[in-house]
């Protein structure tokens, strides 16, 4: 039976389970060591949670095709953005269900546009950043369940990040957030509504300049069709700290943001049908983004964009837009 994904701010039980699940996955050894992933420095154990950080960086570094001028990679800046993150979230949700021992647990989402409608100076004080939810900002974050504690080895720590070249590296520090530094305010509900009104999922040149639903929600173009930091990207940039980097899954709010983006995609499909472009007629330079191409994931050929269009057997949202 499909689990229900709910708004984290309206469901305290789900919120508490999410926090607990993240902490459990963060403290669960995956059985692998950093050197097995080519991470330089002293050899360290890698947690199950951090496998998702490595996965995201790895997918991002895989250009599709290599050296393409659009900077399209196997998870971003192209049509596969929504399907790839859907697969990532489903596998993360499965792991949360396992460690929580609750097959009915559904990943919660953060409806950030509600906060985006607040005056910018109030957005950093919204409920999502409360001590009982994600905690606040700082370097390191010192409030909430993921606060840094020098003396407590089981407290939340960032262990794998990237350097300025985008390569994986070992670190040992607290979580970082810096609200509103590189972007003034979160996206608003009107911006979400405008994105949902776009009728094509994606369109040529299938890049950061396409005037399509995928490109709008990923956040490379604003409502005026002008290049900008928008929706999904704007949430990353506004939160700042870890969320700026390729290793952004280090911040547990990453999954809440993407769950909301996935909800927007599901809302778009409820209007336009379970359709996806490009199809297999598209040229080899779109390999990795076409409907029957395998998604970069442990599911191999079993996960293609087509396979991700109907997930009704696995989960549903408490409310679509």
């Amino acid at each position, binding site marked *: 039976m499909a689990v229900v994904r709910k708004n984290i701010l309206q469901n305290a039980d789900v919120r508490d389970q999410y926090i607990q699940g993240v902490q459990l996955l963060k403290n669960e050894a995956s059985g692998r060591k950093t050197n097995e992933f080519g991470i330089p420095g002293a050899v360290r154990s890698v947690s199950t949670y951090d496998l998702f950080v490595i996965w995201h960086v790895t997918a991002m570094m895989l250009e599709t095709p290599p050296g393409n001028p659009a900077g399209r990679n196997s998870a971003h800046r192209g049509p596969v953005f929504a399907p790839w993150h859907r697969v990532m979230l*489903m596998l993360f949700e499965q792991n949360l269900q396992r460690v929580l021992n609750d097959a009915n647990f559904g990943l919660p989402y953060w409806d950030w546009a509600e906060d985006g409608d607040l005056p910018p100076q109030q957005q950093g004080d919204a409920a999502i950043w409360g001590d009982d939810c994600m905690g606040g900002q700082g370097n390191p974050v010192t409030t909430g369940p993921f606060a840094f504690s020098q003396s407590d080895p089981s407290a939340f720590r960032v262990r794998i990040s990237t350097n300025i070249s985008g390569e994986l590296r070992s670190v040992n520090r607290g979580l970082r957030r810096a609200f509103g530094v590189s972007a003034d305010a979160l996206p608003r509900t009107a911006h979400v509504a405008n994105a949902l009104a776009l009728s094509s999922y994606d369109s040529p040149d299938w890049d950061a300049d396409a005037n399509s639903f995928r490109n709008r929600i990923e956040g490379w173009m604003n409502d005026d069709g002008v290049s900008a930091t928008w929706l999904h990207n704007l949430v990353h940039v506004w939160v700042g700290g870890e*969320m*700026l980097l390729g290793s952004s899954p280090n911040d547990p709010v990453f999954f809440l943001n993407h769950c909301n983006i996935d909800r927007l995609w599901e809302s778009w499909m409820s209007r336009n049908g379970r359709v996806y472009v490009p199809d297999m007629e598209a040229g080899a330079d779109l390999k990795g983004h076409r409907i029957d191409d395998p998604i970069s994931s*442990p599911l191999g050929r079993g996960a293609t964009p087509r396979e991700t269009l109907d997930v009704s057997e696995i989960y549903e949202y408490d409310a679509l837009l």
Partner: protein
Amino acid sequence: METKKLATGAAPRKLSDYLTRARDKAPAHDGHGAGGAQSVREDNYRGHAIEIVTTYKILVDGRKIRAPLGVDDSGQVHCHSLPNYQTASAVDMVRALIDGFPEEFERKPVRAQSRPAASHKHRPAPVRKSRPAAKKGSKHEH
């Protein structure tokens, strides 16, 4: 998608097996790691072939930084290590790099071999060349 397929693929061992394979197969990042990232933009106009090759040489506190900046067809600057961001100006991108990777910009104390050991806590003021700061937007390389 079916639940069964998903449950098997979600096992941490499956994910880590996949990741070690994916990282073995990952192509070497020409330019990216070396900081010599290049953007090549091509166009045809009135029968003429246009090719614009852009590379960035960026110095922060006089030190060359190895960030893989690029510029896309619409002239937006992006950087592989800040994957969710694009700016009209490379200056704003470098500011974001300083925010995103603070330890890479820490000013290292000048090595003072002849000084007493206690002096390592003293951080000398960084040497700055008296050059006017780049005006925002004045350094577009596209």
